[in-house]
């Protein structure tokens, strides 16, 4: 029995178990401190639908052996460009949203290709280089947000007349087009974002199906055993590039869905640290540096968003001070440190 428990802890990982029980205790405590359980769960689902796709976007790169995508910001930039261009062209509703997506995907493919070529040149050190590629591209884009010739009065600074604002409202363009699609309202508090959830599910299914095709299995092989894959005639470098492009494209879509649901396009330094919560969520779901699945995405995003939603409300009510931000930092970054110190079979 003792052996069995030890085995489970070894397999699942102690931090995950601690976090899981932490979350369960938060849910148990919630009704006692006057927080409605149904609204809390609804909040978790809404946030899951907002952030899920960003977590999903990490999967292709993990599978191809590129490690955790610390350079997620590159895809986010593609998404942001799509968003601001669609608003500049006054495109509204579903048309606007899909136009933003089309532009974003186009840019993401180009960026992803170059990113993939770079990552192939530095096999073995992907993660640390990717972190700084992400950071430097965000700060480079800050300069461009300032000098690109956008004209729409809803996006540029009111007084200077040039340069984009730090946050741009999507209301009046494509705010909540997915979220309100087939929306189910139960009572006055519970709003079920069917459209966004369906979209997330669709993307999950597409990624799952993609890894059942010939290219998908080749990517998997290239990641789990590059030498074996090469001997089977798989072009490992090409597979890695495809996976990086795929990851970047999904990130671009992910940030658009996030903005659509959130209501604001956040520019400048806002995307700087966006990679870490997504990575932490995936790891929380049971993934490691070299292995990830759709199951990990869904479980991880749910657990992570659960903690983000429940800690502020419950802890605030118990000890009357807001420790949630610090707890979030400890949990998400601690999870990443833990995963990085695990011995995994990632080969260069």
């Amino acid at each position, binding site marked *: 029995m003792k052996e069995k428990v030890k085995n489970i802890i070894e397999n699942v990982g102690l931090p995950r178990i601690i976090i899981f029980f932490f979350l369960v205790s938060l849910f148990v405590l919630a009704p006692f401190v006057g927080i409605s359980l149904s609204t809390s769960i609804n909040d978790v689902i809404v946030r899951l639908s907002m952030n899920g796709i960003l977590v999903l976007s990490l999967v292709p790169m993990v599978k191809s052996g590129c490690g955790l995508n610390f350079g997620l910001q590159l895809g986010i930039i593609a998404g942001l460009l799509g968003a601001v261009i669609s608003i500049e062209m006054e495109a509204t509703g579903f048309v606007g949203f899909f136009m933003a997506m089309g532009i974003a995907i186009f840019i993401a493919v180009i960026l992803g290709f170059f990113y993939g070529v770079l990552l192939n040149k*530095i096999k073995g050190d992907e993660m640390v280089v990717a972190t700084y590629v992400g950071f430097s591209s965000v700060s480079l884009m800050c300069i461009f947000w300032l000098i690109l010739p956008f004209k729409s009065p809803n996006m540029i600074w009111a007084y200077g007349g040039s340069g984009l604002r730090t946050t741009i409202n999507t209301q009046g363009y494509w705010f909540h087009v997915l979220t309100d699609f087939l929306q189910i309202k139960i009572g006055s508090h519970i709003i079920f974002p069917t459209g966004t959830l369906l979209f997330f599910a669709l993307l999950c299914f597409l990624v799952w199906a993609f890894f059942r095709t010939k290219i998908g299995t080749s990517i998997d092989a290239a990641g789990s055993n590059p030498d074996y894959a090469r001997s089977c005639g798989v072009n490992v470098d090409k597979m890695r590039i495809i996976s990086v492009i795929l990851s970047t494209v999904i990130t671009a879509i992910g940030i658009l869905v996030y903005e659509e649901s959130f209501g604001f396009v956040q520019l400048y330094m806002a995307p700087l640290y966006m990679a870490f919560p997504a990575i932490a969520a995936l790891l929380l779901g049971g993934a490691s540096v070299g292995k990830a699945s759709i199951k990990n995405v869904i479980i991880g995003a749910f657990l992570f968003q659960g903690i983000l939603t429940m800690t502020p409300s419950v802890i605030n009510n118990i000890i009357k001070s807001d420790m949630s931000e*610090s*707890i979030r*930092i400890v949990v998400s970054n601690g999870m*990443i440190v833990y995963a*990085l110190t695990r011995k995994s079979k990632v080969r260069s």
Partner: protein
Amino acid sequence: MKKQNLTGTMNPYLKFLIDYSVPIIISLLVAFAIPLSGLSGKYFIKELTIRLSRNSFLILALLIPVMAGMGMNFGIVLGAMAGEIGIIFVTDWGIVGLPSMLLAMLISTPIAILLGYFAGIVLNRAKGREMVTGFMLGFFMNGIYQLVVLYGMGNIIPISNSKILLPRGYGIRNAISLMGIRQVMDKFIPLKIGGILIPIGTILVIASLCIFIVWFKKTKLGQDMRTVGQDNEVARAAGINVEKTRILSIVISTVLACYGQIIFLQNIGTMNTYNSHEQVGVFAIAALLVGGASVAKANIFNVFIGVILFHTMFIVSPRAGKAIIGQAQLGEYFRVFVSYGVIAFSLALYAWRKRVEKENERRKAMAFKRMLLQNNNTAEGDKL
């Protein structure tokens, strides 16, 4: 052997250009931006002296882990936090002057040793990806630091000075004034040349750290670290305790970073309790890389060339940005971009070269094996 291979196939001029591409690019940028900024020579020299004395110690703290083959120590953030905790205590007790600063160092040393030891253990478990792990460790520790300083201090840890406590009675304020230790080391030996204050005290401390590092390289421990840095297996065969040596290098670096942060803060005179340490690692590492260092090789000269180039850019870029498009914000973003970009570029360049070398070696080994096989075959053929 490795070196020969690479230089053999490469034009020496080209090799120089690639090795020093970062300092060359930054020098060109600076040369372009200085006239644009329109700053007077005196102002410029004054700023640069301040920044040299303020930042050099922190950057010197990076050298020892590079020697031990652990790359750029992003974990110096941990040392900076330890130093800040020491400063919070001496400010709370209301001690002023140089003794206060020395006491802050004394208090924070055990904290820095403890944190460094922890970081060393974590990094030993993450061999091959020390840098990204150290980086994430900094973020993780920042959360713990917040819990301790924002919720623990005044609650569990006794702090009584209402000037540094938040109005709610516990937790340290966002910004605390360090009037008690402001520039006590810089002005310890007052000297002014042409209206510019020369911080002799701090310069002496930095110089003695340089001497310490040069001496340290020659000690048994220093030699061991270099062996570990070159090859773990060789070091182990030579009877060196690799794990312990690596931990020691991180502990020394963390303690030095802790002192570095205290020196940095005494110069500035105010402390942003929750932000001062955040960017310490990034700026120190970027400066070192701008000085021509790489992940595997860094020396004292790189530190000083780096500080001068990197901080010249920091001084001139907002003004230059204003001159180009009329917005100082542009220069602001530009210098953030350069800091991150330099790190991305240097790390990528190093990783790429490491891979090319590995590939060359593999090819050589394969060719050698083939030759042996062929010889064997012909020998067997002769027998028949």
